[in-house]
């Protein structure tokens, strides 16, 4: 498969993840100010109760496979920061899968801190790509510099941006899922 097509494919998926994040955040803000917003957020949470874990797991799985595609098939060399983000993302492809099977919403206590760290690293990596001078006093590491931009689609999507979108979407989905109090009320 041609790398450009895969880049656009992953970039489109990134946009889908961004839409999930932005729509959820917008609904949350809306819910603070109007009863209709509150009702919309409730519907969203109800939906996340059913499918949030499954969708979160799918995102983690696609992110993991995408990252493996880039390193193993497209032969992009992962830099140090890529590895840190991988450490935060890969386990979710299994952990969230088990949680989805068991419908175990408590998992967010464990997953949220990890994806938050992952997202923070992605933001830093993305900034490095935009402003390489943050990393070093003006020289590129010849082996695997984190400043190398391997993918650049739609004028804003790079690989760390893809990772950031994945982390953010997983975090938002987990935050929408019912808290312990909600579950106690249901039970």
């Amino acid at each position, binding site marked *: 498969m041609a790398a450009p097509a895969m880049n656009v494919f992953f970039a489109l998926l990134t946009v889908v993840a961004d839409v999930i994040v932005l729509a959820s955040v917008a609904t949350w803000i809306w819910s603070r100010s109007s009863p209709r917003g509150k009702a919309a957020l409730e519907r969203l949470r109800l939906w996340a109760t059913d*499918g949030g874990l499954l969708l979160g797991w799918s995102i983690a799985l696609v992110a993991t496979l995408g990252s493996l595609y880039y390193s193993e098939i497209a032969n992009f060399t992962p830099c140090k920061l890529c590895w840190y983000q991988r450490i935060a993302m890969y386990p979710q492809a299994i952990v969230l899968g088990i949680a*989805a099977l068991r419908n175990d919403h408590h998992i967010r206590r464990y997953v949220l801190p990890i994806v938050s760290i992952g997202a923070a690293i992605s933001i830093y990596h993305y900034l490095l790509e935009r402003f390489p001078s943050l990393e070093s006093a003006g020289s590129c590491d010849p082996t695997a510099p984190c400043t190398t931009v391997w993918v650049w689609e739609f004028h804003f999507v790079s690989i760390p941006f893809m990772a950031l979108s994945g982390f953010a979407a997983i975090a938002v989905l987990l935050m929408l899922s019912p808290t312990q109090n909600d579950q106690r009320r249901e039970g």
Partner: protein
Amino acid sequence: MSTAVQRKRSSNSKRARTRARQERAKKSQRFFIGGTVLLVALFGVAIAVTSSGNDSETDIAQTRSVSITGDALPSLTEEDRAIGVQIPEVEGSSFEAEPLSIERNGIPKAIIFLAHWCPHCQNEVPVVQAWLEDGGMPAGIELVSVATSTDRAQVNYPPSEWLDREGWSVPTIVDDARSSVATAYGVDGYPFFVFVDAEGNVHHRESGELPIERIESILAEL
């Protein structure tokens, strides 16, 4: 509470649990079908978008064979162990396939190693080019660059087009696919500068975006 009622309740709740499980299974089935449709659709869009665009393929070879004679310089570290060491001689060619070489020919030189994907090289090239066009380069010193670390998977490929676009007027040796010239000169980062005295020994090596004043002051020492 009689046991009969308990049993009835438990069988009711069992039925409810089964129903809930079936409902969840149905929902996840819908989820997987919907997800697959979305993935296939996005993939189709991606292929459609990229197949119409023309590829930036080039006929010009972006790596070429080079021959290197002499010992490789040690990699640049905090204290440069290559200072005063004889440079290895290089025979290679430009993107236009003209023969080019780096020789110990009694002329002091500055060699610049450039990687197309490196943002610092992308910054440095226009700065040096503008300085050359202003006649900043002192006479009697040879300036040569090496296009190295070339990788078609990375951004700003091919290097020949990048340097063309920048109007790069410095004779440029095209390194081979294993970046042999860069290795022989002990590159530790890009862009990489090697300043060579008239005797063919290393005077100074430095990596990074060098300001013109710094380049001028080192050239003045040669």
